[in-house]
Each structure stands twice: as structure tokens, then as C-alpha cells.
């Protein structure tokens, strides 16, 4: 479904991604972790072309992201993305947040889009908040709306860029619960996250990145059992200690 081939990226002279190669199969859940500044967010933003890369290629559902001929908006409309800071549109109600892209990008009728939005809002347990504005919701609620907004586009895969990093601790689980449910339903997911409990529960594979390179790309059990690289071992011991 998502195939990343030898991707490298520079900011001027600074190399942020070094020869990254990995794959996410249909229905697979892949967790990407690593210290901050390791390039994991940059890599996931390359997958739907939000960040350009200079060499290598990424193929999403048979379409090359790097090719200048690719219709990037069309490709992006088929891949859902959830951001660290939610990025709901603050000037629109929750209902309109959910309906906007369905109407403007997919060309759905307004009542059809709103109906679909409401159904998804119900699924993330927030149907009572449809008429509110994003600023009136808690961080956890906003992130659940953001997930529903992405799902409303009927994506073939979902990208999560540190979806719980900006949340208060007591709100993390409500978001993770939605993600776990999605994973159980067979959604193809690529998640940048430090939530190792989530990784243990639903991930098929775990990718560990450091200094722009993929250091470790292993099945979940292998990763948590015996990570090969020393860097991954130190990282794991640091975040799993408590």
C-alpha cells in the first residue's frame, strides 16, 4: 500500500532523511518511533507529499508521490492524516469541519456529507458536540474530531503524526481507543508515536529512526523482545522504565 524506497531529504546542507526504505502492507499497522529530531515526522509528511524529498520515491497505492506528474491533491484526498496539534479549522463548526472537504474535494452533496460526518462523529463518541466550534472542545475531543474528519474522506490508509503528544495525560487514552478500534477494523495505518502501549497492542511492525535513518524495522515481538541496534535498546530502556 505504502512503499518508501531510498528516500533522502535535505534542508540546504543538512540531511534530514538518509536513504529510508520501508513498506506498509494493506491492513498493516506500523508504528514509527525514535528520539525527537530523528526525522520521523518528516518521513510521514513525505508519504502524502506535504514535504518534498530530493531522492528516492514513495509509492502509495501504485502512485508515485515524487513524480511531478502526480495529482497530489487527489492522492492526498485518499490518504487520511492526523496531526499533533489537531488542526481543526477554528472558524468552522464541528459539522462543517467534517463536511468541508467532502463537499469541496469529493463533490458530495451537502446533506450527504453532513450525514456522513455525523455518523463518524457518533463513532468517536462526540455526536453531542456537532454544533460547537473547535475552541469549545478539549484537546482529546478535538483530536477525535480530527480523526473523524480524515475518515470522512473514506481513506485507503491513515497517517498519524504524534497524535497524542500535545494532549494532557488523561486525554491520551480516549484518542488511543479510537485508533485501536480503527486498527482492529483493518485500517492501514502508519503512526508516529511514543505510545509503546499502543504499539504493543496493535502494531504489526515497529520502525525505529535515529538521525534521519531507519535503524530498526522489525516485527513488534522482535522489536520489544530483542532490538538489535544499541541505539534502539537505549531508547527503549529510557521510555519503558516507568
Amino acid at each position, binding site marked *: 500500500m505504502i512503499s518508501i524506497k531510498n528516500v533522502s531529504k535535505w534542508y540546504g546542507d543538512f540531511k534530514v532523511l538518509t536513504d529510508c526504505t520501508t513498506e506498509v502492507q494493506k491492513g498493516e499497522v506500523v508504528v514509527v518511533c525514535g528520539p525527537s529530531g530523528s526525522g520521523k515526522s518528516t518521513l510521514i509528511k513525505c508519504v502524502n507529499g506535504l514535504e518534498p524529498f530530493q531522492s528516492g520515491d514513495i509509492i502509495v497505492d501504485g502512485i508515485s508521490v515524487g513524480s511531478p506528474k502526480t495529482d497530489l*491533491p487527489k492522492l492526498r484526498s485518499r490518504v487520511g492524516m492526523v*496531526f499533533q496539534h489537531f488542526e481543526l479549522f477554528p472558524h468552522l463548526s464541528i459539522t462543517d469541519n467534517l463536511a468541508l472537504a467532502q463537499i469541496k474535494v469529493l463533490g458530495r452533496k451537502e446533506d450527504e456529507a453532513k450525514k456522513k460526518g455525523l455518523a463518524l462523529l457518533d463513532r468517536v463518541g462526540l455526536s453531542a458536540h456537532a454544533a460547537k466550534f473547535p475552541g469549545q472542545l478539549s484537546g482529546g475531543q478535538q483530536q477525535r474530531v480530527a480523526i473523524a474528519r480524515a475518515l470522512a474522506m473514506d481513506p485507503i490508509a491513515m497517517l498519524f503524526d504524534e497524535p497524542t503528544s500535545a494532549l494532557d495525560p488523561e486525554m491520551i487514552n480516549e484518542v488511543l481507543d479510537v485508533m485501536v478500534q480503527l486498527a482492529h477494523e483493518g485500517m492501514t495505518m502508519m503512526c508516529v508515536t511514543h505510545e509503546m502501549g499502543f504499539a504493543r497492542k496493535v502494531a504489526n511492525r515497529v520502525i525505529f529512526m535515529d538521525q534521519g535513518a531507519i535503524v530498526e524495522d522489525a516485527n513488534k515481538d522482535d522489536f520489544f523482545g530483542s532490538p538489535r541496534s544499541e541505539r534502539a535498546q537505549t531508547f527503549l530502556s529510557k521510555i519503558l522504565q516507568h
Partner: protein
Amino acid sequence: MDFSSLITAMPGLLSGMMLTLKLLVLAIIGGVALGTLLALARLSNNKLLSTLAGFYVNYFRSIPLLLVITWFYFVVPFIIGWLTGTNEPIGAFYSCLVAFMMFEAAYYCEIVRAGIQSISKGQVNAAYALGMSYSQTMRLVILPQAFRKMTPLLLQQSIILFQDTSLVYAVGLMDFLNSARSGGDIVGELHQFLLFAGLVYFIISFGASTLVKRLQKRLTV
């Protein structure tokens, strides 16, 4: 001082005020529209486009408004005549309107540019990630938020524009101030008429400015 002649001159003053307001409203609409396009051009990744827009803004911000008004009075009819092949004069009102729109666009551009830049990159990414095009992202997501933030500044700039419309006297347009001046001249009571005009400009500008400040407070809370 006797202000009774003001009453008889009222219809003339009123039509002068109508012209001032008409010029103001059209110049604001055109200036904000052109200013927004300029702001998008200045922020564009296209080097040529952003350089051209930057040059435009810096140029118009570096020359006097009075010069632009007189310049356009002579140049705009010439260009339009040249483009359409007719020799009909377009008149002082339209030449002034174009002058104000183009001049104010440079100032509105900087306000809109700051407004767009105040919206986080994450909002752009979120809109793109949903499959929106650049123009959809700007129209539906970024500009509505930016305009909300910029409204007080745009209004303040428009109040300055309201005062600056009086410069049209240079090309003989009968706006409010010019009507007051000529009305006063006719009856030989220039002082009273100019005092009255000053009072009206003050009340409108200060009143609007106070309202804008109140709006600003409400928007920041």
C-alpha cells in the same frame, strides 16, 4: 459667528459626502481585493511573482498619494483610450478611484500578508492533507481566519483612507471637503464651512476609530 448659511448649503454638502463615501467604499473593496492578490503573490514560491509584487508595494509606499492621484488623472484616461481605441474621457471620479485602489492596495497587501503569516503552517498542511488545492486552501481555510484577525487593522487603514479621499480636490472632484470649501467661498463664509467640515471628519473618523478599538478588544478576548 453665523452658521445659518450652512443650512442652505446642506444639499451640496450632502452630495459631496455621498461622493466621498462612494469613493471610499469602492476604493476599500478594490484595494482589499487587489491587496489580497498582491499578498498572495508576495508569499508565493514563484520568485518572479513575489519580486514583482514586492516591487509594486515598495514603489507605491514610497511615493506621495497626491502624486498618484494627479498622475492617474492624466495617465489612466490615456491608457484606457489606448486600450479601447476610443477617446472618451473617463472622468476624474474613476481616475481617482483607480488611483486610490492601486495606492491603498500596497498598504492592504502588507496587512493581509501579516494576517496570512499569522495562521500556522499546520492549518495549510491540514487543508492540503484533505486533498484541497492551493486556491481552496486559501479561500476556505486560511483567508477566512486571516481576515478575522486583520479586520481591526483593515478598518484603521480605511479610516486613514477616508481622510485621504479629500486629496481629490487636486483634480477638481467635488467631494465633501471640496463642496464645503466652494460652498463657503460662494457665500463668503469660508471659516464656518471649514470648521464644520473639520467637525464632521473628526466625528466620523474618531467615532469609527473608537468602534474599531472596541471590536479589537472583543476579537482578542
